[in-house]
């Protein structure tokens, strides 16, 4: 029952936002916060549970078509739900002064998107998953299109077409699966557990897996399909880009973990070298592009392309350590990139520009905000002691066991990360030219938000154990499925070299 | 009898050609009426006196009269004739003319290819048509009346709008 309420709360908040805004000026903001707060309470109540799924809510929706209302909560989705609630609250907080016109509609969209995301993390019925997958997309497009910056139309349509086209591929794959199930067992079913027990012909499995992979790869920006991200991010309002960067990108990775890998274990194993290579390409290409940008927000957007390249590398390394690293990276990237976007938003609020050429020498004017920016740049750099390092190290360690040449190249991404992060610090904070003076440093609210994110980064950097334990159970279960392709992962084939 | 048939067909075709080539609207209209009357005669020859009568009364009578009214109302005068001549230069004949000739050839080929026997041919009196109308086709008659009513309302509405407009203009 808790799961259903988890879904209902944001929907109700979205529904009543205009009404409440009518009664009180900032009513809809408080309504969103209360909805997220209640969700947090529900999550606390749902904490801890054994067995496959901690909580399950199952009902019949369209029995004739084999579509059921099947929600399930386990360690992985529990963690990502916490991330959603936390960063949803953060995005509401930071848009307190930034969003002026049509506040109610803004919060309605925000809550709808959160509801979609919660649905995606809970759904265990493929059809239901697809419904929520679309639900979370539309409000985000509206967020970008209405409250964005100058050429937001272009960015919103590009984002929409990219995601929509790829999710249609996924729909085909889902239908393919359902019909395959019908041909084998006579009954049409979209339920994940039923489809798990399906034996597919290798060729068919490969194509279906590709269908899923493309949809998730677009969402988790994989290099060739990532071009929507920088535009969507630079044009989105701060709250939008926080939501987009921190959570929407994770739905792609979550999809890979929840559906793509377990449903097509052998196909994924065959596909893993290609996916890892694409991940590494993402890391280096993202870093190189981030290095070349003048617009601060675009720079941060490309950094998330680089970080998600690590996640892809981790997921397709197909061993426990790398998967834990990938989930950790999803968390750490969520915090560090969201924080960087908030900082960029604050700078834009003060000087109405995101161009690094005009934003030099901030340290003299805003020491506290610059201190935070430095910390978050170091986090995205992967400084040990902060959350990103643990994730990247685990990913590299896991990927190393699968194919060490790729990992060696991926490790160069660390140098790339150093380049763009320090470039951000140098051009943004240091240097001589200071923009117009007289702007106040962090206000109490901003200080609270940034402080919380910094604390989270330190906490998960020095004590990531709770996250790793939370995720250990589902990942072990995911790996139990017959995974290894014909040959076992190559031990270090060094003999041949020397 | 058959020579009469072919003769009227020829008249009808010539009249139709005149309608199409006509420069003056009224002359073209008269040629059209001639063609209709020729058709009425053909109907009669085919043993469909009821249809022939209707053709003459409703078609040639009512509809053509309506056309005459409209042409008179618009009274374009001689200027229109010159304009027609300008519009009707030889060039514009070629394209559509070729197309219609092609269509005619195709229809002709189709018709000749199919063998339509003339068995069971007999004249159909008006009574039989009446029985058919109020027998199986009763619904059709009702629909036809509905159609006429709709047209009536439409034309009336357009005319009324016209009345207001004239009020404003003049």
């Amino acid at each position, binding site marked *: 029952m808790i799961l259903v309420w988890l879904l209902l709360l944001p929907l109700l908040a979205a529904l009543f936002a205009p009404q409440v805004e009518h009664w009180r000026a900032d009513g809809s903001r408080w309504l969103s916060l209360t909805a997220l707060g209640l969700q947090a309470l529900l999550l606390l109540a749902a904490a801890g549970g054994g067995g496959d799924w901690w909580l399950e809510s199952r009902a019949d929706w369209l029995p004739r078509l084999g579509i059921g209302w099947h929600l399930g909560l386990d360690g992985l989705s529990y963690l990502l739900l916490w991330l959603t609630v936390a960063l949803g609250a953060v995005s509401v907080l930071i848009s307190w002064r930034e969003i002026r016109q049509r506040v109610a509609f803004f919060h309605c969209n925000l809550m709808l998107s959160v509801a979609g995301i919660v649905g995606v993390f809970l759904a265990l019925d493929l059809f239901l998953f697809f419904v929520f997958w679309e639900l979370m997309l539309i409000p985000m497009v509206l967020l970008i299109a209405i409250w964005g910056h100058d050429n937001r139309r272009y960015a919103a349509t590009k984002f929409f077409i990219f995601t929509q086209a790829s999710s249609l591929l996924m729909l085909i794959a889902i239908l393919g699966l359902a019909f395959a199930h019908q041909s084998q067992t006579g009954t049409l079913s979209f339920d994940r557990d039923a489809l798990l027990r399906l034996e597919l012909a290798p060729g068919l499995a490969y194509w279906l897996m590709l269908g899923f992979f493309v949809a998730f790869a677009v969402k988790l920006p994989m290099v060739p399909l990532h071009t929507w991200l920088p535009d969507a991010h630079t044009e989105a309002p701060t709250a939008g880009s926080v939501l987009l960067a921190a959570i929407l990108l994770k739905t792609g990775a979550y999809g890979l973990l929840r559906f793509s890998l377990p449903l097509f274990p052998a196909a994924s194993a065959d596909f893993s070298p290609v996916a890892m290579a694409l991940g590494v390409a993402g890391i280096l290409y993202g870093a190189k592009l981030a290095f070349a940008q003048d617009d601060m927000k675009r720079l941060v957007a490309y950094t998330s392309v680089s970080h998600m390249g690590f996640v892809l590398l981790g997921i397709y390394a197909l061993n426990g350590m790398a998967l834990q690293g990938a989930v950790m990276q999803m968390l750490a990237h969520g915090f560090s990139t969201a924080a960087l976007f908030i900082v960029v938003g604050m700078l834009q609020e003060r000087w109405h520009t995101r161009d690094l050429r005009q934003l030099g020498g901030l340290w003299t004017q805003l020491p506290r905000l610059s201190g935070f920016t430095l910390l978050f740049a170091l986090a995205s750099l992967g400084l040990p002691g902060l959350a990103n390092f643990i994730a990247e190290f685990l990913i590299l360690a896991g990927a190393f066991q699968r194919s060490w040449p790729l990992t060696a190249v991926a490790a160069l991404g660390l140098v790339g990360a150093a380049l763009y992060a320090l470039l951000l610090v140098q051009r943004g904070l240091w240097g001589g030219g200071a923009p117009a003076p007289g702007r106040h440093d962090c206000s109490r609210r901003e200080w609270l938000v940034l402080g919380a994110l910094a604390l989270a980064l330190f906490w998960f950097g020095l004590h990531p154990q709770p996250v790793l334990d939370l995720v250990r159970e589902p990942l072990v279960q995911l790996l139990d499925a017959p995974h290894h392709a014909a040959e076992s992962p190559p031990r270090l084939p060094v003999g041949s070299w020397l | 009898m058959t020579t009469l048939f072919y003769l009227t067909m020829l008249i009808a075709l010539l009249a139709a050609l005149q*309608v199409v080539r006509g420069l003056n609207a009224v002359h073209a209209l008269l040629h059209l009426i001639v063609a209709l009357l020729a058709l009425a005669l053909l109907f009669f020859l*085919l043993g469909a006196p009821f249809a022939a009568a209707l053709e003459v009364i409703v078609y040639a009578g009512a509809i053509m009269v309506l056309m005459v009214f409209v042409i008179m109302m618009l009274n374009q005068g001689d200027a229109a004739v010159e304009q027609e001549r300008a*519009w009707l230069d030889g060039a514009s004949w070629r394209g559509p003319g070729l197309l219609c000739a092609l269509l005619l050839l195709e*229809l002709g080929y189709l018709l000749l290819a199919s063998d339509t026997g*003339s068995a069971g041919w*007999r004249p159909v009196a008006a009574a039989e048509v009446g029985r*058919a109308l109020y027998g199986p086709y009763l619904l059709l008659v009702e629909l*036809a009346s509905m159609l006429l009513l709709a047209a009536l309302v*439409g034309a009336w509405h357009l005319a009324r709008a016209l009345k207001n407009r004239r009020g404003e203009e003049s």
Partner: protein
Amino acid sequence: MTELPVEHGLLFAAALFCIGLVGVLIRRNLIFILMSLELMLNATAFVFVLGGALHGNADGQVMFLMILTLAAAEIAVALALVVHLYRRYRSLDADRLEAMKG
């Protein structure tokens, strides 16, 4: 009557129809277009009656009747529209009406 070859009748109707069609395609004056349209309608009506007569049943003429009502209704509305257009555009040129362009 029986020896009347049907094909000739049909050919006649086809010819009449094509002449009407040419009229519609070529003429730019709306009135002429309507008149040519009438021709085409009559050509089809003739075929119906010919068919009815040929098979000796009344359906041909019933269909003729329908075409008649149709023509009447159509011409009424068409002429009202033509008058309207004339009022508005001061000319009967069909090409003047290109507001619905690309």
